[in-house]
Structures are given as C-alpha cells and as structure tokens.
C-alpha cells in the first residue's frame, strides 16, 4: 500500500473561515478557560503580597492600577470571564438536552451580551486612568 497524502493544515485550522457557530463556541470556551486559569495564578500572586503586610498590598495594588495597560487588561479579563460564564450556562443547557436546535443562536446571544456588558464596564475600569 502506498502512503496516502497528508492534507495537513487544510484539515484543521486552515479551514477556520468555514467554522460554524458550535465550533467557534468551543474554541472561545477553551481559550477563555485557559486565560482564566492563567489569571488565577497572577491573582494569587497579587493577593499573597498581603502576607508581607497591608501597606505592601496597598502599594502593589495602587502601583498596578496606575498602569494604563492593567486597566485595559481588566476590561479584557471581564470580557473573558463573562463569555465563559454565559457560554457555560449554554453548555449546561446543552448537557441537559434543552434547546439544542437553537444552540447557535444562544452562542450569538452570549457573544452580544458579553460585548454589551464589556462596553458598559469601560467607564468604570478606565476611570481616572485616561
């Protein structure tokens, strides 16, 4: 038997423009999940500065909040967390077998809702920084 041809990327992410809603939901859910796991470590690192005393903790937080990039990262974190929560609810419904015919619409709904919440949060997060 001769070796069959390996179509490589054509079979994987080379087709990303042809992905459907469910596939995008899966990719975003994995991505946001890993971002949240990563954030957990920085979160613990920042909180543990409190172990060297309240002043250190306060100055760490103030130092971080004074950086514009951190303000933007916080907006990003909210976006990631909100999408992960909303899509998580969607997946819970899928697991329970509820509304599987409208799984694509519920994905779009969670995207739109995430966008709306993030836009609404921008003034709060960027207050005093810009």
């Amino acid at each position, binding site marked *: 038997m*001769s*070796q*069959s*041809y390996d*179509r490589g990327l*054509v*079979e*994987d992410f080379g*087709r990303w*423009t*042809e992905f*459907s*809603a*469910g*596939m995008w*939901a*899966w990719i975003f859910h994995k991505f946001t999940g890993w971002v949240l796991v990563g954030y957990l470590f920085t979160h613990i690192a920042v909180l543990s500065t409190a172990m060297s005393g309240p002043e250190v903790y306060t100055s760490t937080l103030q130092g971080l909040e004074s950086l514009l990039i951190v303000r933007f990262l916080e907006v990003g974190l909210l976006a990631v967390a909100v999408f992960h929560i909303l899509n998580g609810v969607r*997946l819970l419904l*899928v*697991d*329970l*077998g509820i509304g*599987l*015919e409208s*799984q*694509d619409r519920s994905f779009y709904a969670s995207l739109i809702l995430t966008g709306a919440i993030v836009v609404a949060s921008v003034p709060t997060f960027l207050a005093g920084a810009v």
Partner: protein
Amino acid sequence: MSTGITKPEEEEETESQAVGAARAAGESAYGQARMDESEIDAANEASQRRARRAVEDADRTVELKVFRYDPEVPEKEEPRFDSFTVPFAKGMTVLDALMWARDHYDSSLTFRHSCRQAVCGSDALFVDGKQRLGCKTQVADLADEGIPGEVRIEPLPHAEVVKDLVVDMEHFYDQMESVEPYFQDEDTPDGLNEQRQSRENREKIKMSTRCIWCGACMSSCNIAAGNNEYLGPAAINKAYRFAMDEREGEDLTEHRLNIIEQEHGVWRCQTQFSCTEVCPKDIPLTEHIQALKREAVKKNLKFW
C-alpha cells in the same frame, strides 16, 4: 522466458525459432495495443469535442475544481486540483456535475456513487468546505444567488485518500460495528407474534434510524480527527437507536451503555455540533449523544 537476452549461436534451432516466434507475436500484440490506444485517443478527442460544444452551447456553466490524487501513477502522485467546465442545467446536483465531467473530460476521475437519491450514502464529499452528499446537494444552492462560478470538491477530510475523491472507509465501518448495530433480544415472542413498539418509543428513535453510513459526521468531527479510538457520532447514534429501543431487554440496554460510556465513547464529545450541522439526513446527533451521556450518568449514580 526472456526475449531480451541475446542467445549464443550454438543454441538449439528449435528454441531460437521459438524465441523468434514469441518476439514476432509480442510485436504484433504491441502493434495491436497501439492501435487500440489511438482508437481510445480518437474517442477521447471526440468526447472532448462534444464537451466543448456542449459548454459553448450552454447558457451557464460551472467550474468544478476537483481534488486529484492517484498514488499508483507516478505523474499523479502529487495531489493537485483539476478544473472542469460543466454546462449548468436546472436541478443539477454536485454528483451530476461530477459525472458529466467524468464522462466528457477524464474517465479516470474517480468517486463513489450508487443510488443518486441520498439513500446509499456512497458519495459524501467535501464540497465548498463542508461535508455534503453529492447527490443531495444542488449546485444552485452553493451560491447565495444564481449559480456558483466555482465549486470546490475534495474527498472527506480526516480519512485516507485512496484515489481522487475516494477515501478509505474501513475505520468508520469498524467503529460502527463496534457498537453492535443490530437488534438483539433474549426473549423474542413465540410463533408469529409481532414484537410491537409503542408510538412514543418509535418517535423517540425515529431520527436515529435514518443513518445511511455516509461518514460525513465522522469526517466533520474535530475529536474523531485527533482520536482514532473515539467511536464517533454515527456509531454513538447507532448505539442510541438500540439503547433507546424499548423492545430490547434491560440487560442488553445495560450492555449497550457499557460500550458507549467507555473512555473513548460518549464522553469524548465536546458538543461542537459539527456532526449535526453536516448530517445529510438531519439527524440531531449531538442531542442523541447528550441523551446517552445522561443515561450513562443515571446508570452509575447510586445514592445508597
């Protein structure tokens, strides 16, 4: 007996005669083959001429871009795309277009097809980036408006290509067989009694009985692509069809659940809905997989 070796002169006369005769016979056979070839060439040319005329006469044409690959012919070992211009006719399916191209341009263009009415499941193809049945896909449906300028036809992804659009289905069939896709019952009724199924139960398994084993779902599944042990959507759907059938006894249902709740069974499904999107028979595959996941949990949850 090789005719290519020059014999020494002191060779027996009879044998050299035999060699000569064999040589002559070989040459005449070769000449015959050449004549046949030229006839074939002429026939090919005539068919190409007919194709050109048909294309010129047609109001609208479609450009097929077809994946070509043949590991057995050195010049075709390198995969490539061939373009065929096919005259469009109302109601033309992708399979019709492929058959027209094969019959008029290149008789070596290889693809599976049989019933042409979405029942045999032979012609699942990767058309314009989606797994579809060639015989069920209208060419006109591939464009937003009117007919598409170009249709891209490839063999099913995540399967070994045997030749052109033909893929090796063996793995898919193995997975289907592994869920024991046939009715089994320990207590069939005596004599000529019917084994009745309630209407509700029939409704429940109705969609899952429609599977035609085309393999489109398996090809679309991202998990099955990376994990050859995963049963795949079609096999799990088959398991659903029998596990949910009330006519099978409880022991059998449990046996079936044991098969699908293994490590590479239902739990590998990540609900990407790719299979449900591509299924040509509109089987709600993800829904069935999720239902079996719940059954598996119910079977194992014990509160005592």
